């Protein structure tokens, strides 16, 4: 077994579990949330035990014990405890992170932090954990019965672990340890006869069975719960003290091991006397011979018949089992794949698309209709493969959003601003590579909103707003882009202050020439910050320009909508994917350009002009449409052809015409970045390779419009917004 790989899996799973735990911690009201937290800690503990990660096991165990008390209802989940458990969650995450970095033992600081947290957890524990459980008496066949002096009747637990429990991260030893916290184990007999010899032995399979005698005062349900996580796969029999002989006999018969072998164990555990055993085995055998149905009697019926357990408990337990089964039935089957593999696949599909386009081009030059047909079919399949491959990389934004619950809560608490976070459109999907690059800018924006946007409680009350601030994260698709909004109901942007600051910093020379939108956009200038006090959250002026740059890198844009006193909405508009898009190919002189098809509204011949050509406006069926000549913007050499074409594009609310020489039609575009050398290039979003092998350039429409606007200042006031 590759332990390193298994450990990696453990680390990934632990992080996922911790995420789930955090989510539950932030909404701890429901019992399902408490259960989820308990399960998370429990599973981490179990898996960590498998790797011998004692610090994690020890810590998780204590947290689990506290969670268990919450679960049992004997401990209230008050905000203090929630905070403490959150801290414990962070500590666990830290431990896992250190493990990830190859530090199994953990750094001294982390260990100290862990000890401090354990000390804080202590008051929540019912009893201080027993310093050391009494040593387990391991009864083997050689041991002498007279050594066992106490004659107390015990619970008898018989368990045959399922073969897969090790793989599921369970450690049989942890169950014993846990049982010791419930009472003392008086007898323990490991059953190893399922253990195969030599080559058949699989170290990842569990072959262990245990016969346990437990001296405890707890209820049956408590003992059953110990084995909750292995119940489905394992055979477990729990027999209360002073049960009838038949019950033990039933146990003996239901289990695969030899009757006498088990009988002896039970005799040693003082559950049966040798005489009982002998008589019982004799009679039972006879009974079975007479009536073959005995074998089929279920444990449940026996338990009820013998009135060991009230029927209600059994019904409840059965119901629970059924529910658990139903749940697994509906579960979406998920395969975990390394992200790099997916990236590689998408890269390959990109190459396939290009190669397909080449084949298409060549086929079109020939005259063989069969080749044409074959390439057409191939092309369709490639398109489907492309869509499927890309959809593999699509993930829901919800996971990213929910991480903000914690941040909003923590930051809000730190600043004394209670804030309600509303999440909408969590199921909106976008490319994983975009999501990854989006979380930092989102973080900045959210922190900014809390820090600067939302006012303090006093101010809010004075302004007649609810004391609790509201922040919302929203995601939705809009004409081929994904839009992500971060909205707060805070004070909005103070334009006077922004302007004053910008003048002070020398960012603006002539304040009177700026529109409201220009002023708002000043916040994205490098080195701009209006915060009166620099806090450790934001206000150092490194935020928004970084955000802008990150979004630019994703070929996205940012809009700000702000109302003084009422709040601010930041709107990110991002492409759905960074890999392959549908493009519309156009030509200017010898160069080919690609416009993202989602932005293309229509194509027409240039004209008629509104007033004169110099205005760069055309009359589009009665509407005013500003246009730009690609050859002018890009300073292309050569003569303007007699007949020019316009591609009408829409971005957000802005509509404009792009004038080109030739229209070439739709084209599957595999986006290839232009590289570091072209980082300053304006109006281009990347490049792509055509079927002919030539390189075409992908137009960055929003930037292009911006570029045209700055070049032709006269155009600006007329750039109309068409709704």
């Amino acid at each position, binding site marked *: 077994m590759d332990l390193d790989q298994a450990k990696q899996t453990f680390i990934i799973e632990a992080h996922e579990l911790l995420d789930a735990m955090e989510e539950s911690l932030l909404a701890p009201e429901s019992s399902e949330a408490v259960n989820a937290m308990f399960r998370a800690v429990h599973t981490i503990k179990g898996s960590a035990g498998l790797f011998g990660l004692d610090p994690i096991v020890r810590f998780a165990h204590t947290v689990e014990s506290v969670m268990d008390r919450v679960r049992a209802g004997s401990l209230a989940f008050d905000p203090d405890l929630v905070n403490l458990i959150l801290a414990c969650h962070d500590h666990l995450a830290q431990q896992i992170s250190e493990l990830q970095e190859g530090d199994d033992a953990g750094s001294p600081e982390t260990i100290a932090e862990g000890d401090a947290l354990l000390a804080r957890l202590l008051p929540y524990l019912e009893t201080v954990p027993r310093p050391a459980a009494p040593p387990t008496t391991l009864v083997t066949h050689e041991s002498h019965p007279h050594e066992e002096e106490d004659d107390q009747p015990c619970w008898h637990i018989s368990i045959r672990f399922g073969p897969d429990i090790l793989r599921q991260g369970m450690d049989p030893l942890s169950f014993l340890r846990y049982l010791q916290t419930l009472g003392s184990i008086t007898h323990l007999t490991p059953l190893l006869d399922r253990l195969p010899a030599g080559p058949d032995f699989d170290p990842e399979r569990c072959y262990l069975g245990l016969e346990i005698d437990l001296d405890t005062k707890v209820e049956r349900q408590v003992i059953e719960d110990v084995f909750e996580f292995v119940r489905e796969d394992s055979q477990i029999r729990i027999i209360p003290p002073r049960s009838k002989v038949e019950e033990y006999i039933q146990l003996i018969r239901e289990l695969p091991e030899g009757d006498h072998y088990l009988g002896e164990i039970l005799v040693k555990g003082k559950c049966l006397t040798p005489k009982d055993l002998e008589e019982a085995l004799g009679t039972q055998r006879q009974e079975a011979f007479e009536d073959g149905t005995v074998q089929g009697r279920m444990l449940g019926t026996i338990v009820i018949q013998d009135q060991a357990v009230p029927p209600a408990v059994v019904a409840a337990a059965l119901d629970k089992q059924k529910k658990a089964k139903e749940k697994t039935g509906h579960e979406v089957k998920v395969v975990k794949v390394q992200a790099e593999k997916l990236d590689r696949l998408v890269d390959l599909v990109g190459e396939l698309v290009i190669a397909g386009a080449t084949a298409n081009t060549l086929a079109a030059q020939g005259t063989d209709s069969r080749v044409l047909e074959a390439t057409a079919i191939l092309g369709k399949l490639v398109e489907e493969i492309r869509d499927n491959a890309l959809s593999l990389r699509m993930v829901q934004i919800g996971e990213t959003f929910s991480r903000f619950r914690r941040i909003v809560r923590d930051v809000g608490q730190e600043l004394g601003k209670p804030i309600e976070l509303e999440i909408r459109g969590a199921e909106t999907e976008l490319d994983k590579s975009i999501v990854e690059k989006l979380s930092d800018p989102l973080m900045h924006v959210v922190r900014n909103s809390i820090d600067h946007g939302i006012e303090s409680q006093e101010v809010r009350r004075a302004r007649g707003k609810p004391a609790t601030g509201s922040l919302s994260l929203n995601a939705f698709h809009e004409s081929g882009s994904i839009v992500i909004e971060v909205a707060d109901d805070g004070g909005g942007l103070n334009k006077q202050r922004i302007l004053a600051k910008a003048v002070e910093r020398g960012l603006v020379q002539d304040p009177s020439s700026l529109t409201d939108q220009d002023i708002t956009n000043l916040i994205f200038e490098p080195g701009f910050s209006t915060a009166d006090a620099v806090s450790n959250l934001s206000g150092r002026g490194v935020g928004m320009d970084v955000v802008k740059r990150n979004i630019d890198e994703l070929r996205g844009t940012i809009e700000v909508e702000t109302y003084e006193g009422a709040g601010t909405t930041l709107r990110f508009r991002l492409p759905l994917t960074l890999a392959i898009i549908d493009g519309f190919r156009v030509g200017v002189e010898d160069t080919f350009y690609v416009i993202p098809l989602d932005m293309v509204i229509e194509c027409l011949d240039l004209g008629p002009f509104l007033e004169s050509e110099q205005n760069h406006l055309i009359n589009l069926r009665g509407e005013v449409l500003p246009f730009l000549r690609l050859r002018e913007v890009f300073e292309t050499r050569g003569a303007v052809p007699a007949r020019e074409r316009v591609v009408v594009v829409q971005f957000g609310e802005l509509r404009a015409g792009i004038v080109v020489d030739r229209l070439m039609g739709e084209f599957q575009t595999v986006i290839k970045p232009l*590289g570091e050398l072209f*980082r300053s290039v304006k109006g281009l979003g990347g490049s792509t390779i055509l079927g002919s092998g030539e390189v075409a*350039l992908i137009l960055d429409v929003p930037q292009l419009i911006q570029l045209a606007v*700055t070049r032709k200042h006269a155009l600006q006031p007329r750039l109309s917004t068409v709704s």
Partner: protein
Amino acid sequence: MAEQLQMNKRQNQALVAAKATQRNQYLTFTLGGETFAMEIRFIREVIQFGGLTIVPLMPDFIRGVINLRGAVVPVIDLSVRFHRPPTEPTKRTCIVILEVGQEDNLATLGVLVDNVSEVLEIQGEDIEPAPSFGSSLRSDFIQGVGKVGGKFVIILEVNQVVSVEELASLAANRGAAEAIEA
């Protein structure tokens, strides 16, 4: 054309053979009638000039981009980089594909040269340090001057000549200068 391809093929084979040893191996080429050399370790391959796409609004030393087996690779006009007139493509014009930069951040780019000559071995004792003056080239572009068959060839400091950092900021400055003009 076929002859040219054949030549490129031979050169590439020589490159592969030379790369195996790597030591003291230099590729010589001509540019504006002058012979230059580059260390083999930077060179990935030599291809024939063609299929160039012009990237608009870029300074003249960036001739455009080409498709190198699915990768989009920028092409630098070395002559313009040396403040000489742009290279006029002929049948013998080649693009030398280079890999420059640090281990973890390698950039692939092509340089335009008039003609690729041969792979040479120049021993250390035959290489003089760069002259501090008297050359039309920026001194940091010159790694040394090699003596080959009684003639001198300038060995280029590849990481300086095609420093992506410097080229990118030059390109950015052009954009900024235009913005001010406008």
